């Protein structure tokens, strides 16, 4: 298992894919923050938790999406390029391959959300000060965003990997993740009782976002997202063992 973990870590660090994706994420976050800090009215940004909510909506949500995409990529890229064949020839116990990928995807997922939150925070500081508004989040807010975001990103990374291992094809996997996280979860906002249990909302809940349609208890939210990740992972291990590799 340690060997496989080393191999999976080396896979991530020996291509430039992840650096490119994190750079794209940071760019998107800056763009979103700049647009929002210019467009939102003063009273939304100056009062109460307005700025913190903005950091959650952009930093956690975009970071979480990329965490899932990077997790998915760790397996779909192997199917796309064919490296899955030498991978399972070297490690025919396929559950071990998925387990090692899950650990690495948790790490890259946490990293994605951290990059996203840090970028969002810095960009917000700069644009708010240009606009002449004071920064309102406290040190405690940042700790919650970063620590909660890392946990949420790790779990979303595992979920992304599981979806990728089940679907296998890269584009359909990405489309599925986009449709779920960007479309279905947004539609469900209208049904707060259901929305609070979807992965994206749980990710926000883990960072302590206080809003209708988001589970407001950090630990139950984390636990439920853990259950989703574990469930998805089990299904993906079973599917990977059962099916042929073309």
């Amino acid at each position: 298992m340690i060997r496989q973990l080393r191999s999976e870590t080396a896979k991530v660090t020996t291509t430039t894919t992840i650096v490119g994706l994190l750079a794209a994420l940071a760019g998107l976050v800056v763009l979103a923050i700049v647009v929002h800090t210019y467009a939102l009215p003063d009273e939304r940004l100056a009062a109460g938790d307005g700025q913190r909510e903005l950091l959650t909506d952009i930093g956690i949500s975009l970071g979480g999406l990329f965490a899932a995409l990077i997790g998915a990529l760790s397996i779909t890229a192997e199917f796309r390029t064919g490296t899955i064949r030498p991978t399972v020839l070297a490690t025919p116990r396929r559950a071990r391959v998925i387990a090692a990928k899950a650990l690495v995807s948790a790490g890259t997922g946490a990293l994605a959300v951290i990059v996203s939150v840090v970028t969002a925070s810095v960009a917000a500081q700069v644009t708010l000060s240009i606009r002449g508004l004071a920064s309102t989040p406290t040190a405690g807010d940042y700790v919650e965003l970063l620590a909660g975001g890392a946990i949420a990103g790790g779990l979303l990374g595992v979920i992304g990997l599981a979806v990728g291992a089940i679907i296998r094809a890269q584009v359909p996997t990405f489309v599925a993740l986009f449709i779920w996280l960007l479309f279905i979860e947004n539609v469900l906002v209208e049904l707060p009782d259901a929305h609070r249990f979807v992965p994206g909302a749980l990710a926000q809940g883990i960072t302590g976002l206080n809003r209708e349609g988001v589970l407001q208890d950090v630990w139950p939210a984390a636990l439920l997202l853990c259950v989703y990740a574990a469930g998805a992972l089990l299904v993906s291990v079973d599917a990977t063992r059962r099916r042929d590799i073309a």
Partner: protein
Amino acid sequence: MSAPVAEVEGLTKSFGGVPAVDHLSFALHGGEIAGFLGPNGAGKSTTLRLLLGLAAPTSGTARVFGRRYADLDEPTRSVGAVLEFADFHPNRTGRNHVRVLALSSGIDEHRVAEVLELVDLSAVADRKVGGYSLGMRQRLGLATALLGDPKLLILDEPINGLDPAGVHWLRAFLRRFADGGGAVLVSSHVLAEVEQSVDRVLIINQGRLLADQSMTEIARDGGSLEQTYLAITQAVAL
């Protein structure tokens, strides 16, 4: 005779009810180089994938060293394989491709450099595989197959794209490998090359074994491998 290194018995694999491999049986022993021949779509690659545990048989068994591939403790130290497609991430260097696989088998860096040198890729090992030529990719595939110093090589059309020097090198390499007790199962369509490099041929069509003959037998019958092959495969087609 010693226990077979690779053995398939009644091996059958169907796709959507259509058999690609159909009750195939043969055994391969140490010291032997067997050519695996047959028309396009005959079921060669499928058989090799079944032997390597990439696909599960519909019925029958495929074993290497007496076990299913997936049950081998250190598979890369027993079996090396080059499959029909070039399986590389274009964005990774050749050296890193080999290293990633070495790490998962617990094989050290020293051996990575050694196999790259063996297939004559040291000079380009730090370039991205996306820029490799067909033959360079084929050599890289061989490097990964040799990584664990295996006793059985399973090669699916390995000379595809190799230059004459590469073909010559591979022929000599496989001979030394077999002389050292190793076994080779190699599929190919290049009969002139097969004729020079194998001890025995297995000819299949539509997933079924048509012939299993030593090269000595074929030579004794007076024909070339090509004549024998065409006679056997066309007799079935008619």
